[in-house]
């Protein structure tokens, strides 16, 4: 048991879940056909907001972390209102530029401690450990130390967030708003003329994406205890994009798979870790040439569904179940 619960493994699982959230955040903008490269920027806003609120103002984490998400959302409003009028390439560049502006500001502000970054950020696991202690679990539970127990609790918490987000995304897809999103993605102009307020929904998707990225950033700050401007550079933006590109940006499972693979691979394979950026670059090009829809697409899902439920009778029933369940 101890072998499996060592802090290193537990940390990898935590990063995987954080990356899954980031993957979901880019999925939300992709769901309306927008490519936003500002998620690293939103993540940094969430991370710094929550870290500073807890570090300097002594705010408890259950307040500071949501505050990080809200702060990212507020910034998304500033950038989003002009940006969602923009299409395709303009938006990608504007959001990329936004991330860069945020990074430079963080680099230069006193309160963010510039290039050195913030350290000693209150740890989520310590906070949970204290709670466990007060519950009388100070000596652990059934051979699991309290430290392991609190790490497991953190993982449980992160997993809950991810599960909720997936649930949210699935429900969204088969609701009135989700159909509007999908319509905008397919043909924005036709969606507008069909009666969909495209600007409003693009903005909504942009906000949701920023909020999730902000929350993910805030959680990450309280898991690593240290954040610096380098953590949120262009490379982070590209990495987040890669989750969706590799896994597939059309279905919620795609970015999850992408985040999983890309978190594990560098840990499992030394060569991957050494040539990480080169491999990432190669993957982006290769995916665009051979499988632009990513590993998992809607077609893949349909195929699996028919294999897993061969008795799935007519397609009509399968679709009816998909939209009902």
């Amino acid at each position, binding site marked *: 048991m101890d072998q499996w619960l060592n802090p290193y493994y537990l940390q990898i699982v935590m990063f995987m879940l954080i990356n899954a959230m980031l993957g979901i955040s880019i999925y939300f903008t992709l769901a309306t056909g927008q490519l936003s490269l500002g998620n690293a920027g939103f993540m940094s806003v969430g991370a710094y907001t929550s870290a500073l609120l807890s570090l300097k103002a002594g705010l408890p984490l259950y307040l500071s972390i949501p505050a990080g998400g809200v702060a990212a959302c507020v910034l998304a409003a500033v950038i989003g209102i002009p940006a969602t009028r923009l299409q395709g390439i303009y938006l990608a*560049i504007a959001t990329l530029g936004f991330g860069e502006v945020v990074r430079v500001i963080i680099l230069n502000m006193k309160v963010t401690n510039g290039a050195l970054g913030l350290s000693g950020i209150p740890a989520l696991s310590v906070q949970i450990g204290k709670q466990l202690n007060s519950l009388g679990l100070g000596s652990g539970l059934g051979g699991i130390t309290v430290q392991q127990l609190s790490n497991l609790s953190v993982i449980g918490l992160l997993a809950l967030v991810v599960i909720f987000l997936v649930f949210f995304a699935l429900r969204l897809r088969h609701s009135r708003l989700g159909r509007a999103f999908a319509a905008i993605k397919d043909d924005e102009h036709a969606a507008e003329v069909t009666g969909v307020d495209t600007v409003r929904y693009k903005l909504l998707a942009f906000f949701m994406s920023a909020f999730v990225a902000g929350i993910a950033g805030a959680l990450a700050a309280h898991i690593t205890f240290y954040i610096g401007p380098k953590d949120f550079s262009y490379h982070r933006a590209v990495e987040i994009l890669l989750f969706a590109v590799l896994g597939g940006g059309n279905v919620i499972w795609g970015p999850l798979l992408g985040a999983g693979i890309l978190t594990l691979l560098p840990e499992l394979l030394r060569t991957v870790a050494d040539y990480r950026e080169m491999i990432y670059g190669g993957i982006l090009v290769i995916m665009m*040439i051979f499988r632009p829809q990513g590993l998992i697409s809607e077609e893949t899902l349909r195929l699996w569904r028919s294999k897993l439920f061969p008795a799935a009778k007519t397609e009509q029933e399968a679709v009816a179940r998909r939209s009902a369940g």
Partner: protein
Amino acid sequence: MLLQQVVNGLTLGSTYAIIALGYTLIFGVLNIVNMAHGEIFMIGAFVGLMLVTKLQTGIFTALAGAMLTGAVLGYLLERIALRPLRRREVSHLAPLISTIGVSIFLESLALKIFGPQAQSFPPVFSGQLFELGTLKISIIQIVILAVSFGLMIALRFWLAKTKMGKSIRATAENLETAGLLGVNTSQVIIVTVMLASGLGSVAGVLVGLAFNAVEPTMGITMGFKGLAVLILGGLGNITGAMVGGLLLGIAEVFSVAYGESSYREAVAFGLIIILLFIRPQGLFGSGSAQGGR
């Protein structure tokens, strides 16, 4: 003093203009933002540096070598990351993503080969200063101004007068029509990408000289500035890229001289974000409404 700042700004701005020209040429013809342009620029800077330090060549040989390398990289970029995507119906974001891939590939390749630290040109090149009253101009500045304005004028002339230049402009106007009119569009595309990349590499050497520092991460910072100029001037607009580049250079120099120098890197995108509020089509772009057909 004001005039000094303007000259410094123009020097810097002329290199930005050359970088932005590369972006805008490719965008004009292919409707693609080549995110790898910054890295081709950076490789150009290293090639120039290597020629000067390892082979003791003169500065103009270094510029020519960089241009050649850039053109070769442009050829490879087009064959590997752009052409395969043109063959089939893919999202218009696909080339953006594949060139992002090339950009981080080249950056980390440069990191592996050259190491992360900044390298500088030998002191011979730091050059002497000419003083005109209170105005000081270094020989490097003169080289930069001469080369970049020379390239801009040559490019304008080439696009306006030569057969290939005209084909490029026709293709930029409308790829399909140009094809129907007998323009070999796939040749035009490859020439455009090679030309843009060659220009980018030259700009790399010039910027390396201007800052006297060449490092793998310069591709990202400078690439971002080129993108800023691209938006500032309007996508695909050649005059816009030239004027936008000069404006950005001057704005940056002034923000350092009269404001907070550490925010210099944010000036470019600060400008864009403001501009996007006011004129989303760029300073020189023309608005286009999307019709029903």
